[in-house]
């Protein structure tokens, strides 16, 4: 039997991305030039890196609202260590470790203590952000070594891609392969579809979830380092509200909030779409507020349209049944 071709949400997002790029190139001659592409990639790098891990977490039926605070705490730790005389490499390592630790704390509270992740991560959102202020006070760390911060604003020599493309591309490739071609990926989907069934079929559900929270923390730490280099500064009030952008991107990319459904390239297409739309709106001198409205609208579309299709199909099917 020939496999029936079904048109998925992620293909829709990819087409949406293409349309944005085509329309963007028409409305502004600056859209498709190399400087702007480099800028767009820099602009979305942190959100994209966190979204990779958040995809797993939402597919597994959990959520993490504390990612932006972890990003900032990792950045603050980096700044704090460097200000107190640690070599920059050690400071980066410290930032990454703090990210991992934060993720483990979330995972511990969800899997071992057994609390709902939504409530836990609202709590850790405040806790981790509070620790940023406790570490740095109101003084951002601005004197970072020049040879490192050039990585934040310069392109890879000979190309038009910013340095942050490298971690993003490597991590995206790993995330893609692991989610769609390995046992860990299949386990993630199984847990999201039915945690009870997953447990009885021998999947270590608690350990998997702990791992996913830890990886999300680590990815937020990586994003924290990228963020610090991009702004050449570690401050306690950075990246406020990023968690909502990350979740909006993941859901627009076709991952169901109820868990069990989603593809990684759908999410990547969604992140790029948001970056492209932001750039188009800026280039045609639209106010930054329009972006908020567009993000919100895309988020709603990503739940309303599949629901409308579902209702339409069930009506058609039931009409068919009554005719017989």
């Amino acid at each position, binding site marked *: 039997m020939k496999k029936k071709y079904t048109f998925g949400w992620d293909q829709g997002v990819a087409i949406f991305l293409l349309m944005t790029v085509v329309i963007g190139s028409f409305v502004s001659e600056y859209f498709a030039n190399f400087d702007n592409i480099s800028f767009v990639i820099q602009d979305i790098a942190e959100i994209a890196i966190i979204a990779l891990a958040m995809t797993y977490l939402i597919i597994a*039926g*959990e*959520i993490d609202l504390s990612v932006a605070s972890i990003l900032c705490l990792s950045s603050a730790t980096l700044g704090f260590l460097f200000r107190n005389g640690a070599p920059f490499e050690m400071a980066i390592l410290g930032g990454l470790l703090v990210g991992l630790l934060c993720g483990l704390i979330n995972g511990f*509270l*969800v899997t071992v*203590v*057994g*609390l*709902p*992740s*939504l*409530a*836990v991560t*609202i*709590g*850790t*959102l*405040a*806790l*981790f*952000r*509070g*620790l940023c*202020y*406790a570490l740095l*006070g*109101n003084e951002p760390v601005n004197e970072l070594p020049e040879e490192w911060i050039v990585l934040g604003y310069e392109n890879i020599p000979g190309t038009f891609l910013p340095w942050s493309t490298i971690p993003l591309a490597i991590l995206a490739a790993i995330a893609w392969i692991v989610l769609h071609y390995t046992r860990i990926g299949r386990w993630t989907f199984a847990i999201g579809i039915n*945690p*009870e069934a997953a447990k009885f079929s021998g999947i270590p559900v608690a350990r998997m979830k702990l791992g996913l929270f830890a990886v999300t923390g680590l990815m937020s730490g990586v994003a924290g380092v990228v963020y610090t280099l991009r702004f050449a500064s570690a401050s306690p009030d950075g990246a*406020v*509200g990023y968690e*909502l952008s990350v*979740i*909006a991107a993941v*859901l627009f990319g076709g991952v169901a*909030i*109820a*868990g069990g459904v989603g593809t990684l390239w759908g999410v990547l297409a969604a992140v790029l779409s948001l970056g492209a739309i932001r750039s188009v709106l800026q280039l045609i001198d639209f*106010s*930054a*507020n*329009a*972006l*908020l*409205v*567009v*993000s*919100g*609208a895309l*988020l*709603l579309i*990503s*739940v*309303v349209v599949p*629901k409308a299709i579902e209702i339409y199909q069930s009506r058609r099917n039931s009409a068919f049944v009554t005719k017989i």
Partner: protein
Amino acid sequence: MKTAMTKLFRIRELPVFLALVIVVLITGTANPEFFTLSGFQDITLGVAVVATLAVAQTLVIVMKHIDLSVGSTIGFSAYLIGDASSQGHGFWYCMGLALALGLAVGAANGFMVAYLQLPSLVVTLGTLYIVRGIFNEVAGGNTITEDMVPGPINFIGLNTFFGIPYLFIVAVVLMLIVGFIMKRIRSARDLYAIGSNLLAAELGGIPVARRVFLAFLATGAVSGLAGAVLLARFNTAAANSGNGLELSVVAACVVGGVAIAGGVGTVYGAVIGAILLQAITMALGALGIPQFWQLAVNGTLLIAAISLDRYLSTRVKPTSIMGAK
């Protein structure tokens, strides 16, 4: 006697109330200024906005839903009130505008959650963005200043009734009204049934969609009207007003025993939770702890509260992000 004791220990609000008493006593002993009238007024005035929103949020959380759009709604409404007033419109016109905004946002949320059966977390996250975006566009760089605030709102923000700030009285009256309704009126009791077992509620003949819609509508309406409270509290409003308030509100509810898993909790608990968070904020100041630690302490307290609740109750393990099924 024994039954009275067990009954007392069953009260969900008791632990958080005891925590509040302990915080107040410790702080008061360490710093006697905390016990003065101005210390009392600081707490009650500071808590008014979050307490008002927490009362509204309770309606939604007991149904196992959530409304994240309240921060955007209250900020926009505060701005609209000030803006309309500065153009010479009267007090009631301004309040009508605030109510209309709240009803519009509430109806949009309610329609999508109740009739399209979409997840409330996603829907209200979407409306949070959209309302904030429209608000920022309307407000631009403008700021509502004190002379633009309508007279009655200015009055309740600055004055006290026998030492109790009017704003706190507004929050308490709202709490008592909603508390009475949720205890005595059957359609409001239905919200608990929906939150504890959706399927059973449906089979039991509760018009679930209508109840969910009305609860979101009510939450929206209160958030809109609460714009007056926000404006009265700060005497100013600008494009960033109410930003991030939704998380403080959810935190107050959860600390006060309104479980995110739905079906339990009261508005009294939510308000006590809000007061506890505010008291701790003030206590840190009174004890000379740098205010930088404030946020971290609030977060820790929230986690401690839900851990304790989890330990005390014998509910099943959470299987979804909203908690137990």
